[in-house]
C-alpha cells in the first residue's frame, strides 16, 4: 500500500533565538525522502526565517538560511508566506531571499518556491492537510 498524505510544516518562530526553525528544517529535509505532498507555512515570526542577508558570524551560531535554497532539489517547492505577517513586521516580499525550483513538468523551467498568500488563503491551506507539524 502506497499512501500519499498532505504534510504541512507550520513555522511561527524566528531563527537563532531558539532552535525550532533549524530543527524544523531538518525534519523537512528527512521527510522529503518519503515522497509525500509537502507544504511549508511561514506565518507570524516564522517569516523572519526567510529574510535575506543573514550573517551569523558575530554570534557564533551556524547560519542555516542558505539551506532553504536547497529545498527545490528535494522537491519541496511550496513555501507559503503570509502577507499580513510581513505587513505587521514592516517587511515586504523583497526582504525575503529568492528561492526557486526547476519544474520537471515544464521543461525544467525555474520557478519561485515562495508563494505569498493572504490570511484567508493560509487558513484554507491549513484546513486542507492530512498531517500538520508545528514548530
Amino acid at each position, binding site marked *: 500500500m502506497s*499512501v500519499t*498524505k498532505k504534510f504541512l510544516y507550520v513555522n511561527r518562530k524566528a531563527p537563532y533565538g531558539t532552535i525550532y526553525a533549524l530543527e524544523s528544517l531538518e525534519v523537512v529535509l528527512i*521527510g522529503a525522502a518519503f515522497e509525500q505532498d509537502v507544504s511549508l507555512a511561514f506565518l507570524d515570526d516564522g517569516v523572519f526565517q526567510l529574510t535575506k542577508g543573514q550573517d551569523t558570524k558575530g554570534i557564533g551560531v551556524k547560519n542555516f538560511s542558505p539551506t532553504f535554497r536547497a529545498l527545490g532539489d528535494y522537491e519541496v517547492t511550496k513555501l507559503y508566506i503570509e502577507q499580513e505577517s510581513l505587513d505587521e513586521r514592516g517587511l515586504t516580499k523583497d526582504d525575503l531571499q529568492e528561492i526557486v525550483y526547476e519544474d520537471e513538468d515544464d521543461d525544467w523551467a525555474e520557478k519561485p518556491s515562495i508563494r505569498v498568500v493572504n490570511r484567508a488563503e493560509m487558513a484554507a491551506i491549513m484546513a486542507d492537510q492530512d*498531517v500538520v*507539524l508545528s514548530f
Partner: protein
Amino acid sequence: MKIGVVISEGPYTHQAADSAYNFVKSAIAKGHEVPRVFFYHDGVNVSTRLSVPPQDERNIQINWTTLAKEHDIDLVVCIAAAQRRGLLDENEAKRQGKDANNIADGFRISGLGQLIEMGIQTDRLVTFGD
C-alpha cells in the same frame, strides 16, 4: 483509531510531557491505539534515566517507561536532537567515544524518519510542545 504523539519540550521545565502522558493514558483507556510517541527538540530530555526529581513529585521518565511497557508503545528519541543535547544509549556512546550513556529502559534512539512514518501510518497526530 491510531494516534501518534509528538513531545517537543523537556520534562519538568514545560508541562508538555505531563499533558501528553495524561492524554495517552486516556486514549488507551478509551480503546485507541498509540503505537508510537516521538521525542523531538528538548523532548529528548525525557529519556534520561539519571533524573532524580524530588520525592513528592512525579517521575516523568518512569511514568513513560511504565506506560510504554504496559501498552507496547514505541518511545522514539530523535537521534539528531539527542546528540546535540547529550542523550546517548550504549551503542551511540561507543560510536561517539563517550565514557557514559544515559538513556532509560524503554526508549530507543532513531532517526527523524520515524516521525514522518508515524505521520503516514497513524490516523491522527497530536503535538505537545512549547
